[in-house]
């Protein structure tokens, strides 16, 4: 188990390194001189030259990459152009909001999707199954920003049940949670559909397995068979799906943060692009890549915890 964990961690480091390389190439290939961009049109040639010197832009490209690469691993992602604050600090300030949003989205999708999929599988062919099927396709088909806007209009503007914008008072957990409900629903609702369909399909498959027939042949109660014997296996593809889907959730989070004017990594990168704050853009991309890789690793570890067959192949 432990060796597996370190192997996976090593792989994660490789993936992050490749991502850094691609990011470096993109920054390097962006037309224009970063020093001129940073200093604006009215800077003198001497000012540009000294900044270029300070930024290490006069050094050979491999050395530049190495500097970028090694300092990124040390947590130095450069400084923000205007305020001069370290990019890592700026990104990490915003990260908890996005993590909360994604966690909320996963909670919604799992809390609704798994029971619905289970219900549909157990009552296969009934009206309940058909309604779940139609709803699943519907929520998958609607883009999350549309869901976000409608959720905002209905629950915040029309019904006034929930707050419309922001992330809530800092330090007031209840207020922050109520502010989380709508945006996380917007992020997670499409996933309710994916998960319900996935769980339904794998439940139907597992319920046909011979070990389920064995369980029935011992007269185990239906509830134990459905939840303990079948769902514990049928859940596995869903965990994998969620692990892969984290990337898509991150992009829905960007829209949700903009629509609900929430702080977060999405909002940060959006504003940074508008203000051509490139160190923040590349730093955010890097941090989200690491996040994505780590959450994927987490999904794999969860699979290992749930499935002894996977665990012993570690």
């Amino acid at each position, binding site marked *: 188990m432990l060796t597996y964990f370190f192997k996976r961690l090593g792989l994660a480091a490789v993936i992050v390194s490749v991502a850094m390389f691609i990011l470096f190439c993109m920054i390097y290939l962006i037309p224009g001189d970063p020093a001129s961009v940073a200093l604006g049109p009215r800077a003198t040639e001497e000012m540009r030259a000294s900044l270029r010197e300070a930024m290490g832009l006069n050094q050979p490209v491999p050395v530049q990459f190495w500097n970028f690469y090694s300092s990124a691993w040390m947590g130095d992602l450069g400084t923000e152009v205007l305020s001069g604050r370290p990019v890592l600090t700026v990104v990490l300030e915003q990260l908890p909001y996005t993590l909360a949003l994604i966690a909320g989205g996963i909670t919604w999708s799992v809390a609704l999707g798994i029971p619905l999929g289970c219900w549909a599988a157990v009552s296969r062919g009934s009206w309940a199954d058909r309604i779940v099927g139609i709803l699943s396709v519907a929520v998958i088909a609607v883009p999350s920003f549309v869901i976000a806007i409608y959720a905002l209009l209905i629950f915040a503007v029309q019904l006034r049940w929930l707050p419309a914008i922001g992330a809530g008072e800092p330090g007031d957990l209840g207020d922050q949670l109520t502010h989380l409900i709508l945006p996380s629903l917007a992020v997670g609702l499409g996933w309710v559909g994916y998960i319900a369909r996935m769980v339904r399909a794998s439940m139907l498959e597992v319920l046909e397995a*011979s*070990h389920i027939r064995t*369980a029935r*042949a011992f*007269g185990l*109660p239906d509830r134990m068979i459905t939840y303990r*014997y079948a769902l514990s296996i049928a859940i596995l593809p869903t965990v994998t799906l969620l692990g892969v889907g984290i990337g898509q959730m991150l992009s829905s989070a960007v829209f949700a943060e903009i629509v609900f004017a929430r702080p977060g990594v999405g909002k940060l990168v959006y504003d940074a692009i508008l203000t051509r704050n490139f160190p923040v853009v590349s730093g955010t991309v890097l941090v989200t890549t690491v996040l994505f890789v780590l959450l994927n690793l987490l999904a794999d570890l969860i699979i290992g915890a749930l499935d002894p*067959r996977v665990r012993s192949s570690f």
Partner: protein
Amino acid sequence: MTTLAIDGLNVTFSTEDGPLHALKNVSFDVPENRIVGIVGESGCGKSTLINAILGLLADNGSIDSGSILFQGRDDLTKLGPAQMRDLRGPKISTVFQDPMGALNPVISVGQQMINIQYRSDISKQEKAQRAVDMLELVRIPDARAALARYPHQFSGGMKQRIAIAMALMMEPALLIADEPTTALDATLEVTTIELLKDLQQQIGCSVLFISHHLGVIAELCDDVVVMYAGEVVERGTVRQIFNDPRHPYTARLLECDPARQSERTRSLPTIPGEIPDLRARPRGCIFANRCHRVHDACAAPPPDHDVGDGHVARCFVANVPETVEATA
């Protein structure tokens, strides 16, 4: 007392191409403390019969007529789902064919063995102890440690012995074994069969043993039921069936099996021709299209002929043994 008395059982599956008459007028008994073997080609309705007994027929299957009397009291065809569930496990336990897939892959063996004792009031430790005792009985090495392990950590033969341990732990009145050794190699098959016979005597239950190995049936069983295309074509004691077969199908099976009961064959010998489509059963004898003794009378359904001492064959010429006919 008869553990299981099946009388005139008919089962049909509704299919897209119309009803499929999978079991037709099936009758036989499983007496107390005896091992009854069911032999027949694949597709002849062995699993359907088991599922009908267990109340686990597929949704499209139904029992149209007949009775399955358990311990002289309950007609299993008339019990509701909850009552059937109460019988499955404590009264009727089952070992299925597939040792690889018969146990849940994500629940430890010990937990599965504890779960099936959910009706019992004893403590969890006592349940675990019973599981250990049973695993020792089926000769699983290091039985206590085995409780914490998962099915994939055992070999096929061990898994099948664990399945047997689970079934017998319930101390059932009837043990059903659906081709429990088919997936095992010959050596494992012998040890598993011997173990099963041993335990049956210790526990004192009746066994309904399904197989298509004639040799295994001859070795293990007291009585034999020969099935063909959803019908019991012949039944009797092992001696009656193997020494004096009266149905042409049984005779052909034994004839085609050169080694007879002494040697095992991996599958039933082949007889030229095919099983008729069960969706369009012939009006007369079901075996007529493959029978070497077919004659005019066979266009009508043959009766169950009792040729003496409970030896019954569903054939018009059952009372005329083949050897007699050949010399006449």
